[in-house]
């Protein structure tokens, strides 16, 4: 008995402080993987059935909608391409570090429940698809979280709304830098350390600042929803709503950024 208690305590300490146990966890999760597949099964045929039972008119409507959307996006993209090249020229002029473009990989959520009191999800890409610990995860609207454990065929993602997660962000309007800390609720992020006199407004968009080296710069994170100023306290109480659709997205994007990968491997990769 005492032996197992000590063993568990040693295990927990090592797992909490170091990352040596990632391999052990990956090996053990290989055993758990079939169970996760079993749990995931009921979803697949149901989705297939509902997909193949959509009436033709609805499909045509959707096609129409997607076509208009594509047209709009293409128009915006034209502008973006010229802006990007202009940006690159200007950056070359000012000798600033060039921002590498990021590659994306699409992964799908597995419907597996983890601990209900922390915000984590399981996605169906793992070591075999070159997912690494710390890789940022986005959905179509914004940042969702980062990979915390990888196993051979799937990986666990901690969402930015997890109470133990924080993202370095900046206000898109004026570059004010701060942190966005999870609260455990899918609808709310807490923004601590905003001084009472800071220039921040309800509706401001927070985007990743790229400080901290995990998340690439410039992806939307959240929008400010409320600011409460209490003059007796040093900081304002600010909360924001995540831009990503935390509990509704089925597909997520894994960002592969050469910069970050290099840092992960351990080479010098400090920008600027």
């Amino acid at each position, binding site marked *: *008995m005492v032996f197992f208690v000590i063993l568990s305590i040693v*295990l927990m300490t090592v797992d909490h402080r170091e990352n040596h146990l990632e391999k052990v966890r990956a090996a*053990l999760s290989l055993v758990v993987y079939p169970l996760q597949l079993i749990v995931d099964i009921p979803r697949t045929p149901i989705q297939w059935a509902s997909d193949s039972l959509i009436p033709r008119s609805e499909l045509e409507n959707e096609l129409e909608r997607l076509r208009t959307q594509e047209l709009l996006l293409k128009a915006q993209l034209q502008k973006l391409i010229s802006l990007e090249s202009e940006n690159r020229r200007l950056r070359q002029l000012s000798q600033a570090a060039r921002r590498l473009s990021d590659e994306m990989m699409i992964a799908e959520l597995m419907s597996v429940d983890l601990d209900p*009191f922390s915000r984590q999800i399981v996605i169906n890409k793992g070591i075999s698809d070159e997912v690494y610990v710390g890789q940022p995860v986005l959905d179509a609207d914004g940042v969702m979280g980062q990979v915390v454990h990888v196993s051979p065929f799937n990986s666990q993602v901690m969402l930015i709304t997890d*109470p*133990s997660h924080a993202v370095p962000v900046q206000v898109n309007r004026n570059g004010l830098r701060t942190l966005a800390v999870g609260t455990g609720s899918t609808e709310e992020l807490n923004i601590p350390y905003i001084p009472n006199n800071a220039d921040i407004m309800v509706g401001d968009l927070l985007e990743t600042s790229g400080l901290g080296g995990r998340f690439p710069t410039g992806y939307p994170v959240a929008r400010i929803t409320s600011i409460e100023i209490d003059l007796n306290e040093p900081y304002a109480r600010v909360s924001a709503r995540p831009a990503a659709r935390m509990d509704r997205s089925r597909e997520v994007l894994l960002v592969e950024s050469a910069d970050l990968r290099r840092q992960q491997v351990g080479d010098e990769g400090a920008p600027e």
Partner: protein
Amino acid sequence: MKLGENAKPQGSIIIALSFILALVLTIMPLPELIEPFRPAWVPMVLIYWSMALPNRIGVALGWLVGLFLDVATGALLGQNALALALLAFLTLQLHQRIRVYPLGQQALSVLMLIALYQILVVWVRGIIGHPPESWLYWMQSLTSMLFWPVVFVVLRGVRRQYKVN
């Protein structure tokens, strides 16, 4: 329960299957509203087996199952292992008493045992800095108590049917 004192142990597969089923039930998706009310399936199955077969099921198995539970739920490695090893130990100490209780009283003991398991888990989580903030966390003990008669009757049926001893 005295049937198989001299027989060879058998039915390991049944025991393994019951734990696998408990793990599957633990990670099965539920609507977010009722998620905190999910009974602690794995600890309950462990309590049953260590009560019914105290000379086969013990602390080591509890620890191993806990490790898998940790991996499956993405918890700190060793957290559930510690809690379940202690749970198995306690059940082994108490098995002769709990065994002869009527079902209702048994459910109460299960409430106490699962609550103790939850206290251990919350303690570990507090130490690493993220304890669950909602009181709903403790609902798991209550729903486990309510589901205990079902688990007990089903597992006893299975044990008798397949002569696990």
